[in-house]
């Protein structure tokens, strides 16, 4: 009964448009009231949910990403990608995907990726005769590769939701190959469509230009090296590396590139605060929510239920993926990571799946949800940047969905895709 109240109030609040974070808070408060708990427990859980050391990396990564966006690092990455892969058929699509791999690899935020790269690339693609829906589809779907390519603040949210026992650097390593795999799948899909529509290839500018643009892009890429390399080599902890990524991006764009002025800096700080606050308050109220899920023993019960349907690992993973896909369509990523991890992780662990592999599967799956209606932040931002209606993109986006689904199947059923690198370098 309490559980029904919790889920019912939450669902009701979400449907009438109350922000998801507050919907969780309201639902948790209602359930605590029903259970006869002092209502202050809702807020104690929320405050404690935010004051978690690992989560400090989130403001740092987000801030670094904003600095790069407003400081011209993104534009340099696009120029480099364009020189390197622009001459393939439908070249700008490959440029788009490759840039996402590079930029998403640094910022870890799909939305930052779309607004940074989309606003540069979508107009150019349209100008060269690509259909606008194609340009938006490529931008949107490739941006989610950045969620699994390290560093990624969503991975940190996952590590926290998993109970804090996971090594974040192992998780980072686990994301590298799946991220590249996703990009390859998307590039293949984009290439096939490009041939069908007879999209142009760019002129190969020569190795001199490749070298020149790569030189300009390297200092920006070093941000990723600082963050990931700093952690793997033992100079920093993950959290410290995030702070240093931000400090480095600031120094680089302000003193070296000289592309960041005072206004750009202010915009970057304010945007970072907005995003951080949005994510953190979600995490806070999700921990009130999770407390109740634990109290009602939802994970155990759902686990028993699923194992009751089938004991085959194949079938259970399929079921979990389907559930996540449906949830991913109607809810946003951070909230779902926080709610679903404590529920599904024990189940897959009992089937012998490593938590790192599950994390990547979860992120890829929910990443797809970011590109689907009715709740698809990436899709919305992409359509806003590309100035087209959502319905238009949906008519032609399915090959890209298929590409990501294919990557998801590989990640789910082939452990080595995620675990090869951690076992090699861990």
């Amino acid at each position, binding site marked *: 009964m309490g559980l029904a109240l919790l889920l019912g109030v939450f669902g009701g609040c979400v449907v009438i448009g109350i922000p998801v974070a507050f919907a969780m808070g309201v639902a948790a408060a209602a359930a605590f009231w029903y259970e006869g708990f002092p209502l202050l427990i809702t807020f104690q859980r929320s405050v404690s949910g935010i004051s978690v050391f690992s989560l400090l990396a989130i403001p740092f990564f987000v801030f670094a990403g904003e600095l790069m966006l407003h400081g011209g690092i993104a534009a340099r990455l696009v120029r480099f990608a364009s020189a390197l892969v622009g001459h393939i058929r439908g070249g700008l699509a490959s440029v788009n995907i490759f840039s996402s791999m590079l930029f998403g690899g640094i910022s870890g935020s799909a939305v930052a990726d779309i607004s940074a790269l989309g606003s540069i690339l979508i107009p150019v693609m349209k100008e060269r005769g690509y259909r606008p829906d194609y340009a938006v589809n490529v931008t949107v779907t490739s941006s989610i590769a950045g969620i699994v390519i390290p560093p990624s603040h969503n991975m940190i949210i996952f590590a926290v939701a998993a109970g804090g026992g996971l090594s974040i650097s192992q998780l980072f390593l686990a994301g590298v190959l799946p991220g590249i795999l996703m990009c390859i799948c998307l590039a293949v899909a984009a290439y096939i469509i490009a041939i069908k529509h007879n999209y142009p290839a760019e002129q190969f500018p020569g190795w001199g230009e490749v070298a020149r643009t790569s030189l300009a892009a390297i200092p920006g890429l070093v941000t990723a090296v600082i963050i990931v390399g700093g952690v793997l080599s033992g100079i920093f902890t993950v959290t410290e590396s995030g702070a240093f990524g931000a400090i480095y991006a600031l120094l680089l764009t302000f003193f070296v590139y000289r592309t960041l002025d005072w206004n750009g800096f202010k915009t970057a*700080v304010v945007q970072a605060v907005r995003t951080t606050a949005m994510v953190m*308050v979600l995490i806070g109220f999700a921990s009130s929510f999770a407390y109740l899920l634990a109290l009602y023993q939802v994970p155990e019960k759902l686990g028993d239920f699923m194992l009751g349907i089938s004991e085959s690992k194949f079938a259970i993973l399929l079921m979990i993926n389907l559930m996540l896909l449906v949830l991913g369509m109607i809810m946003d990523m951070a909230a779902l990571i926080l709610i679903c991890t404590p529920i599904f992780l024990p189940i897959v662990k009992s089937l012998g799946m490593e938590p790192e592999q599950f994390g990547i599967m979860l992120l890829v799956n929910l990443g797809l949800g970011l590109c689907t209606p009715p709740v698809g932040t990436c899709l919305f931002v992409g359509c806003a940047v590309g100035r087209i209606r959502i319905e238009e993109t949906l008519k032609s986006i399915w090959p890209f969905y298929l590409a990501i689904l294919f990557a998801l199947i590989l990640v789910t059923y082939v452990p080595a895709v995620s675990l090869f690198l951690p076992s090699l370098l861990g």
Partner: protein
Amino acid sequence: MQDYPEWIVRGERILDGLSKLCVFVASCALVVLVATFGWLVFGRYVLNATPTWVEQLALLLVCYIAYLGAAAGVHERTHLGVTLFRDMMGPKVSAYLKLFNDIVLAAFGGLMAVASLELFQFGWSTLLPMLNIPESFRTLSALLCGGLVCIFAGFRALFRLALMMRGQTYYEEEAV
């Protein structure tokens, strides 16, 4: 917005200012947060004396970034929500739903403020490790957030209602 009653225009302006103040304080907290981490690593490697207060101070600062930013987010409508179903209802029902949402948010903000005040009092005798200040300084961020959410959503509900009764529609800013 020009044909709104004077008090609503002025009220919106005050709320805008309050929200900007929240974002400003949170922004300063973010800059300090990054700087203290620079100091942490400097202390560990160069001074060989790790500043032991950084971690706990950071956890305190992040609460203020989160809660003040979240309160401003209520005013600026930057929180993630599912507006699809509401938008399908047509403008009339949608307007009532928005009013209802604001009332729910305001009530929740009020509850958050009252409950956090209790936590604030309760935590006064418990100290934050390494900083040795009362735990209440942490819950203060939630207390402020609750109060601000109540103010932002409450006044918006009031403005909506007043305009509805005059037959006008509330000016809705699209989320950035």
